[in-house]
């Protein structure tokens, strides 16, 4: 990632501390909360839509390769060219080659997390191709040489004052700290870029396999210009964006916009079926669609498959207490918030974001908010286990057919809507018992962290009542005091007093009550 991750620090702990201490960011949080709360309030109103959308997304995952083949055939039928890229490198090469072959000197981009994921703008700039982000928030972030801090509202971490300062660096004189004026300036400033660009690059919100129609939602109309004015349109599409039928948009689009911004529908909706035909006035001469895998297809059939149902609405970010306190840059990755904590280690197969699954209080607000019922909190817990062993993360396929079904649970709770693979899969990694056993037997601790040994030992002691009682005798020394500082637990005591075991445990008091008639009445 060559873009600067603006929040300093090598770990999430350091970056989140820096974020908490950053007056600019904390000043922007009020605005952020207001914006996010609006989205949240509207997102909560449509359980039936959620059910239908979740079913559609699982239908895709049940046969992802099949739907991709059907989509590719439809795209080719309508005159688009399909490119399949396994890695970010391949995807970048495809796009840079397309631009070079056509002698492109300027590219306009609409906002797309997929192009962030593959660092496309940087690759184009390195190839001496001017690349301009045209979404207002994304443009601000590009000028500031940062990453988006939120996948829907990229510059939400910035105050209006800072935005004016940032944009002023591209203006002839100081710009006013006025929302409308800044938007108008950017509109006028970017217009010539649209006119001179020979290539427009977009992401894809959904791609319908039956008609080969790719759909893009925006609020500024920049997406429509990017995809219709330049002669060549390149759409970068993560493979899971495929949907079976065009009619599924009737379910998925309102769900996406409600969950993302609280809008019943976005201001602009572009449905693109192939390049301009001979009898049409508008549209590009060529349409290229780049299918981006980047380790996604390997997740199908594993306990992490549900993550591919994600529609990038940002609802989990909007409700996450951690995200709301530190904003997106603290995550040090393209995708932030709860979905980013799951997706980052999965897409990189453990090369990036290994600590991110731990940076959660597991409150479950994300699971509850997710419009396509991804059990995000459960996936975080599962990743914590699967990331213990150093090295490449390669989740193994698992069998379906767990006993839990929505009907059998009585009342439905978040994350319990579907008998998903995640719900059915045992939490103990395959072969883990054997591995741990061997390691103990041979005293081969190389792959075992201190935490693993500590929990293994602790659980053995506490799985016996005698062992538990022995450790709980500590209370006689600590007598229920509060510690202001405790070596080994400074992570806690740096910010809070720590309660120590009480002089008499509950079980001791229960025993006294049972044995002594005087204390029978509590």
């Amino acid at each position: 990632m060559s873009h600067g991750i603006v929040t300093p620090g090598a770990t999430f702990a350091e970056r989140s501390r820096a974020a908490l201490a950053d007056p600019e960011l904390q000043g922007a949080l009020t605005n952020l909360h207001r914006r996010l709360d609006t989205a949240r309030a509207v997102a909560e109103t449509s359980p039936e839509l959620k059910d239908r959308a979740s079913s559609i997304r699982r239908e895709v995952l049940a046969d992802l390769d099949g739907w991709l083949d059907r989509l590719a055939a439809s795209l080719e039928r309508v005159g688009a060219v399909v490119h399949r890229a396994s890695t970010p490198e391949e995807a970048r090469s495809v796009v840079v080659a397309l631009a070079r072959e056509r002698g492109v000197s300027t590219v306009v981009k609409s906002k797309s997390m997929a192009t962030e994921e593959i660092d496309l703008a940087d690759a184009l700039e390195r190839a001496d191709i001017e690349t301009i982000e045209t979404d207002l928030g994304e443009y601000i972030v590009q000028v500031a040489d940062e990453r988006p801090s939120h996948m829907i509202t990229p510059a939400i971490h910035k105050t209006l004052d800072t935005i004016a300062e940032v944009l002023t660096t591209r203006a002839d004189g100081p710009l006013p700290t006025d929302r409308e004026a800044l938007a108008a300036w950017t509109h006028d400033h970017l217009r010539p870029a649209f006119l001179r660009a020979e290539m427009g690059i977009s992401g894809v919100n959904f791609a319908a396999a039956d008609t080969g129609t790719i759909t893009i939602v925006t609020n500024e109309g920049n997406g429509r210009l990017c995809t219709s004015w330049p002669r060549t349109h390149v759409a970068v599409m993560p493979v899971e964006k495929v949907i079976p039928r065009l009619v599924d948009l009737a379910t998925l689009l309102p769900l996406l916009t409600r969950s993302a911004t609280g809008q019943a529908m976005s201001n602009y909706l572009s449905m693109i079926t192939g390049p301009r035909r001979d009898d049409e006035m508008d549209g590009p001469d060529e349409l290229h669609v780049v299918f981006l895998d980047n380790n996604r297809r390997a997740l199908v059939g594993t306990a992490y498959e549900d993550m591919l149902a994600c529609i990038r609405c940002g609802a989990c970010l909007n409700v996450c207490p951690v995200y709301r306190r530190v904003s997106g840059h603290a995550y040090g990755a393209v995708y932030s918030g709860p979905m980013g904590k799951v997706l980052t280690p999965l897409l990189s197969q453990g090369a990036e974001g290994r600590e991110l699954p731990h940076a959660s209080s597991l409150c479950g607000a994300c699971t509850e908010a997710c419009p396509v019922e991804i059990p995000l909190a459960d996936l975080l817990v599962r990743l914590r286990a699967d990331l213990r062993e150093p090295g490449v993360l390669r989740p193994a396929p698992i069998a379906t057919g767990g006993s839990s079904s929505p009907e059998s649970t009585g009342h439905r709770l978040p994350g319990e809507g579907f008998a998903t693979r995640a719900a059915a899969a045992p939490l103990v990694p395959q072969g883990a018992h054997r591995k741990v056993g061997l390691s103990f037997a041979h005293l081969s601790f190389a792959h075992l962290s201190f935490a693993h040994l500590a929990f293994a030992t602790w659980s053995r002691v506490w799985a016996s009542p005698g062992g538990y009682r022995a450790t709980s005798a500590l209370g006689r020394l600590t007598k229920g005091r509060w510690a202001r500082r405790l070596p080994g637990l400074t992570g806690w005591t740096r910010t809070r007093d720590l309660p120590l075991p009480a002089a008499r445990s509950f079980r001791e008091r229960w025993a006294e009550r049972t044995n002594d008639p005087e204390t029978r009445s509590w």
Partner: protein
Amino acid sequence: MSDMSPEPGLDPNRRRPDGPTVALFVTCVVDQIAPDVGVAAVRLLEAAGCRVEFPTAQTCCGQPAANAGEPEAAGRLARHMIDVFAPYDAVVAPSGSCAAMVHHSYDRLISGPDRVRAEELSAKTFELCQYLVDELGCTDVGARLDATVTFHDACHGLRNLGIGDAPRRLLTAAGVTLVDLADSETCCGFGGTFSLEYGDLAAALADDKLAHASATGAEFLASGDSACVAHLEGRRRRTGSGPEPIHVAELLARGLPAPVSPTP
């Protein structure tokens, strides 16, 4: 049940002869850090007519290990839990989080033949307030309190158990003035190992919670999990701001009539 409680308070020594027998799963946190909450839970259950048993072999549900990504260790403790509580018809815990651990995670922690036993334990395990109100239909346990209270919905009870208004109904029936807490469903920042690994962030979330609680003017910030209460109190002892965090059972039990000594 509530209409059977004589006003103004129920004699805690009066037992309904047909009251159910429940096994108290006190949880390791309450056992060692907050034993008063365990005593309160027993008093409330008895006030509601239950016969309470305490299986002394119980230890910990395994949640610290499960959430740390150590499912083998968690499974070891889960199997012990299942053995200990197998003989009972109902298991009640003064913790939404520990009850939710049994409910939400045991079927994935335990595979093989024990899985059925895990599901049996899930089906009969309840959080205290949920058990009193939703299972027994007892909203008024006979507690009477003159206090202004605001309530924080601790996460796992709220989202994994679906605890709704049970704690609030108990508090209201006890006569407290209940004031709404802004963002009452937002995490307080405890989160187990999270609060050790990311202490600053955990404290920032506690500050938000305590600030919202302060704004209500309440004397008490009640909640259903002792770990969350301890985290909030630990922060409050540093900053000096916010009402007193307290476990809802402990608060309610303060309003029960004083115990009558057994006749010699």
